[in-house]
């Protein structure tokens, strides 16, 4: 524009750059340095130990077990969430033919997404509570007393009970993403397919799926990151970061949190954080490559 523009550019950028640099960039950069120390937060001096923390992590069975739980989430969370969200989106949108009640269902299904995670977590912790909880109440009500259990302490159910909550609250979000991209597919594609004798399923498989592939890829990455970050729901649903339920559903980020804020092992905790960050980046790249397909322009 003109030569005085820097008088505007600099003061306008400065607040954002400063806040972002100090409170976002700097802590991430620091995390890497702290992970190379055996710092326990008491003294100002941070004994440098090189890659010791990483080596110990490699031999730490508890960490590896936590990480294997993340591995299971990595498969289940994206698969189930996307399958349900896609089904609903297709029912509401495919070929411009919305099923009866679509508008109502859409609003209802999206609703849990905007509820604070803490409320979702506490609410479900009471759904799962053995004696006064809703789930055992329903099972008892329909005569399935044999299935009643203590969902949040039983080691076989606790993790999946919590994952179910995550799926429950995020299906609506992905459904709306898929609806938006399905709505941009011209109806004429489906009309032509119908003339060729296509079924609902084959139209979905051959028209809808390829044309919304980009949204699905993005969703897989979002959910994969969510599977690695998973932990707020674990501590809220199980009623605390060190409860029996939380320990039996301990995921990597929760282990990090406890090592840091319960055990004051800041160096070790930071190393866990760095490993998770690297895994996140690596995973994003792998998924991007593995799901690459020819994109269709229309």
């Amino acid at each position: 524009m003109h030569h005085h523009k820097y008088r505007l550019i600099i003061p306008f950028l400065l607040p954002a750059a400063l806040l972002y640099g100090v409170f976002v960039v700097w802590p991430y950069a620091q995390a890497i340095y702290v992970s190379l120390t055996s710092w326990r937060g008491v003294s100002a001096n941070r004994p440098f130990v090189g890659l010791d923390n990483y080596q110990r992590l490699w031999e730490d069975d508890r960490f590896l077990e936590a990480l294997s739980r993340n591995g299971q989430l990595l498969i289940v969370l994206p698969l189930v969430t996307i399958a349900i969200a896609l089904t609903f989106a297709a029912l509401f949108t495919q070929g411009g033919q919305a099923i009866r009640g679509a508008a109502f269902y859409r609003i209802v299904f999206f609703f849990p997404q905007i509820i604070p995670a803490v409320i979702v977590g506490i609410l479900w912790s009471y759904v799962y509570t053995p004696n006064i909880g809703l789930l055992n109440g329903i099972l008892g009500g329909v005569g399935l007393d044999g299935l009643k259990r203590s969902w949040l302490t039983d080691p076989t159910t606790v993790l999946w009970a919590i994952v179910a909550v995550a799926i429950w609250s995020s299906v609506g979000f992905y459904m709306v993403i898929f609806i938006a991209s399905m709505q941009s597919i011209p109806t004429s594609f489906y009309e032509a397919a119908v003339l060729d004798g296509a079924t609902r399923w084959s139209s979905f498989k051959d028209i809808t799926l390829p044309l919304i592939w980009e949204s699905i890829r993005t969703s897989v990455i979002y959910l994969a990151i969510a599977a690695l970050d998973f932990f707020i729901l674990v501590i809220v649903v199980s009623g605390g970061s060190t409860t029996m339920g939380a320990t039996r559903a301990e995921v990597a980020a929760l282990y990090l949190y406890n090592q840091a804020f319960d055990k004051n092992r800041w160096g070790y905790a930071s190393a866990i954080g760095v490993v998770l960050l690297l895994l996140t980046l690596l995973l994003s790249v792998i998924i991007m490559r593995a799901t690459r397909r020819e994109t269709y322009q229309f």
Partner: protein
Amino acid sequence: MSAQAIQPIEEILPTTRREGIQGWTGGSDRAFSTVAQLMLAFWAFVVIFPFVWMIVTSVKTDPEILSSPWKLPAAIQWDNFERAWTQARIGRFFLNTLLVLAGSLTGTLLVSAMAAYVLARFEFPGRQVLFYAFIAGLMFPVFLALVPLYFLVRDLHLLGTYQGLILVYIAYSLPFTIFFLTAFFKTLPNELGEAAILDGASQYQIFFQVMLPLAKPGLIAMGIFNFLGQWNQFLLPLVLMPDENRYLLSQGLYFLAVQQGYQNDYGALFAAMMITMIPTLIVYVLFQRRLESGLTAGALKG
């Protein structure tokens, strides 16, 4: 992404799409729609029922809650809300949250709008790098920064202060807000700014008196989005606000729930959850359409 993102999705669609297709072959249509309706009704039940149960439980007495999840209250216990508000100090946490959000929302919108305006409408070296540096923040989960952030905030003597939390909230809201508003400012017409320059307006006057009012729809969309994000924020206050008198809502609610196991005032806990949920509920009812498109805009183009 563009300004379209904040319009209701329906409005940007061609109208021909409403008619729909008839005559899929294979399988009976009636059987298909019966199965589909059953599935939808089941999921709607699974979503709605816990909330209905929460509402009913919030007006029951403790003995009623403890006897059976199905028992309806003999009398509505408004008292639960009173105890939640005063004894459980949800009222206090509510005001703390409003205080922090008043600062952080204003700050987020102002700081982001200024940066986004410059990034969208001026050419200067390093512009692209800076833009992508801001966007990169979307990739990193907050908890990775928690440990150093805690010490940073402590060393700046901001631990347990409203100011500290406000600054951190703003900083972590910048990536998406700048991303969104930069796209928005790019769509605004150039002519108005140029006309203002001819009238002798300074660059500052153009921003505050011409551009900012024009960007109102974008600012509103980001206001709603950040209101929900910051109102629901749990991790940052949990770590950065150790002072019990200054707890924010979600944090206070969490500690209330954890303590509940010992104190047994379930009625007040459920009432506290209702109180915490009401503001988000109001925002959802008022802005449902905008919210859906706003929340998903980033993901769609990501």
